[in-house]
């Protein structure tokens, strides 16, 4: 390129008269290629771009540090910790039952999985795994699979939104709304349920739930069809996602990346099949896999997994109808809360009728109720590990008890936390725009990452 004769360089420091300024600024001119101008302007300096922690496409407060060369990412690192709230430490100061209230807030897009994994681990320590009533397990499976669909819908919806496909987002979130309404009917809340408790679930499903759920799921099926129509054959969508963010099987194994990302490499690893819990071995469903190990395949897989979850939900609802009226909590009154939950006249809490019964019939029952709720039950000394298939991969819970009424230690191996280690491998060498797509295909939820 030819620079004007007056200036030896294509650029000159702006404001020559004020060289004392510590902030370096450059002004570029010339008629050459931008690459040449940039090379002369900054030479061998590295450009490091901070993406986040408040960037809308980083799924919360993920910070990506990208070293870029033009549009190419040469190095990518993820910085986390912006949403660390010390949930694990807090759990050490609450009873075992209160623990569910805390762990549900970790990965807030898939709260029921943390609850289920934690409760299964506590039940292991208590030695009551076999005593959990069938209906409780069925409800757990049903809720988890509904939650898996809701979580995948958020992943697909926000992933689409980040690429500018707003309709994908609106359809995804409308469909999720149907499921959140079901959650609200069962647990009273749309998120942060604290519904699954050690020994079973907090309260039985409301009357007419399966009818309501069947109607809602019919709509969800329709929305899923819309989503796959919108995305899977769309040439722009395919061009953005195909062969982007590739991570092969050995990469996934080395980085212990599980879930849809691992299955997109062709390995059908699913904890529900590999190490079943909650009676998953009795349900009929497939583990979909793909071959391409890229972002597009992960979208296909997530949609397919939603259909598989619907299949499980339908089977669970049949069982729910069959076990109508059966208990949803272990019979052991030293563990089960006397929680015949009903809304009282004040709009919350237990019903007056129930409280009246406890207060009026037995003083011991009242003492017992009080002790169980304030002090909690004791859990034998030891440690337990439980994993469940979370929408994002394998969620592990390590609980340690010192024989007291509180967890001595509760550790959550959140799949998003682990999977974010793959960001470097998936993004380096690609374009900046592909970073957004690659991170979306990992589907990290920072509440779970940072805990």
């Amino acid at each position: 390129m030819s620079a004007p004769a007056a200036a030896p360089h294509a650029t000159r420091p702006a404001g020559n008269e004020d060289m004392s300024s510590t902030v370096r600024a450059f002004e570029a001119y010339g008629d050459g290629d931008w690459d040449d101008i940039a090379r002369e302007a900054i030479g061998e300096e590295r450009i490091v771009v901070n993406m986040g922690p408040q960037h809308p496409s980083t799924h919360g407060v993920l910070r990506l540090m990208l070293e870029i060369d033009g549009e190419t990412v040469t190095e990518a690192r993820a910085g986390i910790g912006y949403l660390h709230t010390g949930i694990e430490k807090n759990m050490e100061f609450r009873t075992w039952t209160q623990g569910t209230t805390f762990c549900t807030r970790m990965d807030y897009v898939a709260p029921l999985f943390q609850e289920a994994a934690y409760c299964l681990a506590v039940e292991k320590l208590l030695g009551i795994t076999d005593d959990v009533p069938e209906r409780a397990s069925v409800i757990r499976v049903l809720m988890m699979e509904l939650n898996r669909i809701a979580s995948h819908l958020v992943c697909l919806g926000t992933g689409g939104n980040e690429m500018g496909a707003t309709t994908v987002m609106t359809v995804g979130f409308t469909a999720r709304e149907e499921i959140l309404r079901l959650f609200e009917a069962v647990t009273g809340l749309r998120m942060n349920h604290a519904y699954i408790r050690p020994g079973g679930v907090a309260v039985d499903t409301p009357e007419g739930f399966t009818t309501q759920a069947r109607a809602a799921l019919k709509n969800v099926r329709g929305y899923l069809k819309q989503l796959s129509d919108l995305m899977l054959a769309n040439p722009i969508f395919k061009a953005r996602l195909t062969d982007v963010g590739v991570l092969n099987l050995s990469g996934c194994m080395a980085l212990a990346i599980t879930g849809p990302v691992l299955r997109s490499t062709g390995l059908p690893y699913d904890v529900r099949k590999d190490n079943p819990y909650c009676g998953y071995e009795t349900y009929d469903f497939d583990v979909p896999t793909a071959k391409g190990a890229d972002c597009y395949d992960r979208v296909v897989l997530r949609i397919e997994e939603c259909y598989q979850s619907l299949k499980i939900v339908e089977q669970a609802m049949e069982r729910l109808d069959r076990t109508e009226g059966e208990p949803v909590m272990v019979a052991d009154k030293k563990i089960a809360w006397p929680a015949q939950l009903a809304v009282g006249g004040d709009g919350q809490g237990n019903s007056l009728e129930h409280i009246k019964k406890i207060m009026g019939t037995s003083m011991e029952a009242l003492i017992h109720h009080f002790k169980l709720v304030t002090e909690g039950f004791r859990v034998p000394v030891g440690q337990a590990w439980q994993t469940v298939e979370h929408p994002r991969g394998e969620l592990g819970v390590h609980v340690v008890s010192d024989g007291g009424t509180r967890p001595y230690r509760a550790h959550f191996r959140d799949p998003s936390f682990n999977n974010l280690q793959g960001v470097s491998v998936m993004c380096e060498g690609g374009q900046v725009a592909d970073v957004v797509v690659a991170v979306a295909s990992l589907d990290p939820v920072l509440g779970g990452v940072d805990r």
Partner: protein
Amino acid sequence: MSDVTPGGDQGSALQAPADATTLELVEVKRGMFGADGSGDTSGYGGLVTPVAMPAASSRPYGSWFDQVIDVLTEVLDEAGVPPQEAIEKVVVDLHGADSADAQRAELTIDVAREHVVAVCRALRDDQDLRFELSLGVSGVHYPHDAGRELHAVYHLASITHSRRLRLEVTASDDDPHIPSTTSVYPSNDWHEREAYDFFGIVFDGHPALTRIEMPDDWVGHPQRKDYPLGGIPVEYKGATVPPPDTRRSYS
């Protein structure tokens, strides 16, 4: 609690070492209801409760556990690592099941810290073991477990054989060093950083052992038992609710 003996000795090379004749005492609790001094009218103030983790199990462990331990012993021997030194003890947690065949039975191998990398390598690479997947490192702080206050707990999974086991490695507060396993399981990178951040366990040989959740200039390691939870009293409808770590404790 004093009548506990180690589970037999059938002459196996992998019995619990001779000095493990007592339970692994991790804590001694005193009193109850958090009341001590003159305020204690319950009579429970003098209660002393030793807290001990499950003791070493004896052969046969049951299920596939024996086979895994046998193969591991063999592989370590071949690699020139003395298995008796590397494997400190083996604990089988049945979690209320009748036998180790139950799915919820768990195998824990306590590994001497200097051999943890060799043990991981053997567990990952041998075709009869094939624990390809490391599901992270969980730190636990037992301030009363003298000389081995810090525990790093590794959970491994074998996709090939559908098996899971746990490795437990200890270090003392005075010398909180454990070799990094990132050379065998690269996925442990962030997990070891987390254990360092929260417990102060220094993983020697880690490529970049920095804090991961807490700010870089944070002082202290928040999940240790001697680190306070913090919090302020909250007033609600005239009553004051104390912060959780100063409330009455029942255990």
